[in-house]
């Protein structure tokens, strides 16, 4: 223990360590029956760190390029010692992270933690959600197998439906008119450089804001506790909540290891651009709700092409989602109920559409 104390003194003399972490020491976490939801943000961050670490390890052996990508992943899975473990953890953690990101977003939504003064935290968070889905989309192509190839083809095709900017955007994403090895190189660049760079900055902002503004308390409880301060129950962030978070993170590690060992991620078949798309091609599960919606829109609505309408609608929804906190101000309570209703609808819609999309042929 004295070693740790010496270390702390050393850091304090050079970094003013104690002053730095003083706010952390003061930080508290409100305790109520919905407190467990506070874990989600931390788990998402943890999984992101896992992604970065396993990603860096994969970079030691992965080669991007239509001629080598699939073979390099095959090499990692079969020849590199514990390559199967690193790669499977990377794939599983990616899916889990997207899931916890969505869950985190919905929990913030229902607990109304986006209210003033936390609007910017929400905005940065929604951007992070988009970035995380971008990570998923770009990373999925990198093994260069048939499913990924055609999922990318369909996905970028849909992007091309956006009026005016759609086509140039699609060409930018694909690195050309079609999905080729150039697309792979480009997606690799997005996945390991561009997206991580932006994401890191946004995460720093997001976490900084959370630290400075403290944890939000659900509205009803806030009213209650302001009236009777003695009823307020909280826990110190450091060390109590942090220790619990560490438990959650450790448990997540166990889950990841188990998934990787018992359900290793498969390789698929190497992509062949000249083969026709397999029947019933679907995107990854986190895009299913959008994909299924597009499939259900009739080919022509009024005079507008159905798919264009769908893409525009999702764009609009995304924009509104981003600006959600600014619609709810302190005054009109009917607005609050609207937003609550909308939140329930959004959750029900994404969940049911995802299930529908999964089960549909």
């Amino acid at each position, binding site marked *: 223990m004295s070693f740790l104390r010496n270390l702390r003194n050393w850091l304090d003399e050079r970094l003013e360590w104690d002053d730095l972490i003083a706010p952390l020491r003061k930080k508290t976490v409100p305790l109520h029956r919905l407190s467990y939801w506070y874990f989600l943000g931390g788990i998402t961050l943890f999984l992101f760190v896992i992604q970065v670490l396993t990603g860096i390890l994969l970079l030691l052996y992965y080669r991007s390029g239509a001629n080598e990508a699939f073979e390099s992943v*095959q090499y990692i899975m079969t020849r590199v010692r514990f390559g199967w473990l690193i790669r499977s953890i990377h794939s599983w953690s990616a899916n889990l992270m997207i899931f916890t990101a969505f869950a985190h977003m919905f929990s913030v939504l229902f607990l109304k933690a986006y209210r003033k003064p936390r609007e910017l935290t929400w905005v940065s968070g929604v951007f992070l959600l988009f970035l995380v889905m971008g990570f998923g989309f770009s990373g999925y192509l990198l093994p260069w197998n048939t499913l990924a190839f055609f999922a990318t083809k369909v996905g970028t095709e849909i992007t091309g439906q956006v009026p005016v900017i759609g086509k140039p955007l699609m060409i930018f994403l694909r690195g050309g008119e079609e999905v080729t090895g150039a697309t792979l190189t480009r997606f690799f660049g997005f996945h390991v450089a561009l997206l991580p760079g932006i994401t890191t900055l946004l995460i720093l902002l997001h976490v900084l804001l959370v630290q400075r503004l403290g944890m939000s308390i659900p509205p009803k409880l806030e009213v209650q506790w302001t009236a009777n301060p003695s009823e307020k129950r909280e826990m110190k962030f450091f060390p109590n909540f942090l220790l619990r978070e560490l438990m959650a993170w450790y*448990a997540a590690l*166990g889950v990841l*290891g188990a998934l990787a060992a018992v359900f290793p991620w498969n390789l698929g078949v190497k992509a062949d651009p000249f083969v026709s798309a397999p029947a019933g091609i679907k995107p990854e599960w986190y895009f299913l709700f959008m994909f299924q919606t597009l499939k259900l829109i009739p080919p022509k609505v009024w005079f507008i092409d159905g798919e264009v309408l769908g893409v525009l609608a999702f764009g609009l929804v995304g924009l509104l989602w981003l600006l959600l906190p600014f619609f709810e101000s302190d005054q009109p309570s009917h607005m609050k109920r609207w937003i609550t209703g909308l939140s329930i609808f959004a959750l029900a819609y994404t969940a049911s559409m995802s299930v529908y999309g999964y089960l549909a042929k």
Partner: protein
Amino acid sequence: MAILRNELRPFSGARYIGLTGFVVLAACLGYGQTTNSCLDCHSALPDPLGVTQEKFSQDIHAQKGLTCASCHGGDPTSDDPDKAMSKKAGWKGEIDRKQIPELCGSCHSDPAYMRQFNPSLRTDQLGQYHTSVHGKRFAAGDTKVAVCTDCHSVHDLRAPSDPRSTVNPLNVANTCSRCHADADYMKGYSIPTDQFAKYSASVHHQALAVRGDLSAPTCTTCHGNHGAAPPGVDKVQNVCSNCHAFQAQMYEKSSHKKAFEAASLPGCVVCHSNHGISHPTDAYLGTGPDAVCMRCHTPGDHCDQARAGLQSGLSQLDEAIKSADQVLRVAESSGMEVSEARLGQDQARDSLTKARVTIHSFRKDLVDQDIQAGLKTAAKDLQAGKEAMVERNYRRFGLGISLIAIGMVLAGLRLYIKKIES
């Protein structure tokens, strides 16, 4: 508003210019099409005199510019039936069946004539026909046998490459069966009428009609088309050897060839049948209902023992491949990567196929070579599969260890939290 009127000065030459123009126009439209006035009436007549324009337009002769008169004689440019169908114009009327081969041959056996239309078309069909069973019987006066029009159709005759043609490989069996599967029609001839039924159940038909493999044989592949005749008892394996070269080579050097020839048995057909050829199985070498060896050989003689040896070799390899496949399948579904072993399995299966082909030499030593090669590969793959399973178990064991360690940490953290909060 004043209506402007074009004032044309009367120009009497106009009507002649119009008429000439019309004739020129008609001539331009009609360019390349020879007049075939026969169809004007005959398209409306009932059978057997009826030939519609639509039907005749499908005919390759019509497409090349020939008319009804090319075969039937007469004057196709005249609209007057008496003139069109006059003896003076060479009118032949309905062509008698006995005259059909020579009539068709009058053009199709003339290389100089055929060169104008399709220089690469053969011109020996009539000559071949004369050597065929149909041709020989025809020469002897039998009019029931097939002549050109029976197979090729008439008035809507299509090139063999056209999928709708009666002589397209996909349709040949149907065309032959029109007579050969008709028991009443074939009464009086000493050949069976079950060939089409048997062929339709065969593996060759499956390949041709179902899988669309145009290299698979139909009636004419083995019997010839114009020179159609059964290959002859001692020539059967020559026919089969065109595709099944390896088996035929083995058979040529085997003991069975001499034996079958001496007994006038038709080679390959003895074991594999001719029309109803099904996919051979290892049971051919057995003693059950599918057994072919035991149809001739006596149980207990040294041939029977050799047969048993061959069969056991094949089934040994088959079993080895199957058990390796089984292990590899389990390993793969547990997430292990076994693609190299799977490739090895392909090689092992190739060895088994080779062994099955080598059976036709009827020599155990040769068959054993292939069996042993296959067994070695299958054993290697089985080993790879087992190693994959070991690796899989090792992974789960490692997982178990790490989960225990993680569990300990979780328990420790829990206790620590309890302690600092008490």
